[in-house]
């Protein structure tokens, strides 16, 4: 049998992840309802003042996504820990880097779907205006989801086998994601609200740089991490 190329193998891993997800739809349903509850809680915590809510909507949206991502990322390697599936994957004659690419894309696509689901909710709860710059908004959401998933995949591979893994993942992941959160919230703000100084472009560049840096660092580190799983 012909050995698949790096991207071919990554595609196979991604397809496998999608298939597992599609058969139960458990993870997506869980994180959707989890982040819905989070968004609702933010509005309760801040009070019903619609002006405040509208102004802070990007922050709530990204915090909801961030909290949901911890659940989703943790689950992504927990399923592999069952029956030592990850060991099987690492033993197959494909590059472990392909597993990394496939997993990042799988996690990012799940988060991206979640973020698209949350947009109409944000309209309902916070009265934001999505029609101002929808293409840039979708681009920001996509880049942000990739940015959460790139370091998140490495960290979840690490924490899936550590003790107290539910505490470990956010403890490791959140400090690294500080610049991503800043950039994503600011960029989202400028797609929903007027952007008189045209700052959107520089935040988009920062997001892209973050994604590229963490994709390449993860690409280099993941084989070492997976060896120990």
């Amino acid at each position: 049998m012909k050995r698949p190329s790096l991207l071919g193998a990554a595609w196979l891993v991604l397809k496998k992840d999608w298939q597992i997800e599609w058969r139960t739809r458990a993870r997506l349903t869980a994180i959707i309802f989890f982040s819905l509850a989070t968004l609702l809680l933010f509005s309760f915590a801040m009070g019903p003042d619609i002006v405040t809510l509208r102004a802070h909507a990007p922050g709530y949206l990204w915090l909801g996504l961030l909290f949901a991502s911890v659940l989703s990322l943790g689950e992504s390697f927990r399923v592999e820990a069952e029956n030592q599936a990850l060991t099987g994957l690492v033993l197959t004659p494909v590059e472990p880097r392909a597993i990394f690419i496939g997993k990042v894309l799988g996690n990012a696509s799940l988060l991206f779907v979640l973020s698209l689901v949350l947009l109409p909710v944000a309209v309902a709860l916070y009265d934001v205006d999505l029609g101002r710059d929808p293409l840039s908004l979708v681009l920001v959401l996509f880049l942000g989801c990739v940015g959460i998933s790139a370091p998140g995949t490495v960290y979840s591979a690490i924490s899936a086998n550590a003790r107290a893994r539910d505490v470990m993942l956010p403890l490791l992941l959140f400090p690294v994601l500080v610049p991503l959160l800043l950039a994503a919230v600011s960029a989202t703000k400028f797609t929903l609200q007027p952007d008189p100084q045209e700052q959107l472009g520089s935040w988009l560049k920062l997001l892209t740089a973050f994604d590229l840096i963490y994709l390449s660092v993860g690409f280099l580190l993941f084989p070492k991490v997976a060896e120990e799983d």
Partner: protein
Amino acid sequence: MTPILPLVVLALVVAAIVGHVAVPAVRPWAWKAVGALGAAMLVSLWYFGLYWAPPEQFMSDVGRILYVHVPHVWMALLAFTLNVGCAVAYLMKKSWVTDALAESAAEVGVYFGAVGVMMGSIWARPTWGVWWDWDPRLISTTVMLLAYVGYLALRSFTEDPERRATWSAAAAILSYVSLPIVWFSVRWWNSLHQVQSNPSTVDKPMVAVLRWGAVTMLCFLFVFIVKRYEIARSRQTAAMELPPLEAPRAEVA
């Protein structure tokens, strides 16, 4: 400060630590000598910083915390850089020595960083009027501190020594990489910290005292890392030399 100087200092510290690790003959006395030097310099730093140096132009005596605050943060940065260097070295060629050195550098770095941030907060209150501010250097240091607390937690939560070494090395590299990005993003976002001083804008005696403080802290950094490294090494050997426990024998009636 010229950009090359921190690198030279880093190289000197690394050389000293490697020398201490590699040459058994200096181990019994070198750390004591450096520690004594550090203690003597600390006492004189107290005099130089509080009495000899002129008061700061705008902040008067409050500004004197500079001589300990800034060296602490520098030492934290040095320790974390040493840690990430060891992490890279470990991933390239597995060795218990680099793993132990990474562990000790991270722990000492967290100490220096935490004390530095606390002193910065104390300094911020009378000068900026707030305990906390969203400033690039403050946030980067704090984020780095949080990341390394996570690193230490990961180390203590992983039992298998080889897994612990590899995973913590990967975690260290991922967190260290975020530092420049955090710095840039917060700088774009908001800033209040005074512009970074350099020797040309600061009075000569103040620079001298600041450097004196930095060398004092360097002595302590060296002693802390070297002693912590010895603890890490003896823990490693203890973990490896422990004999497998005998299976409980069946009771003979």
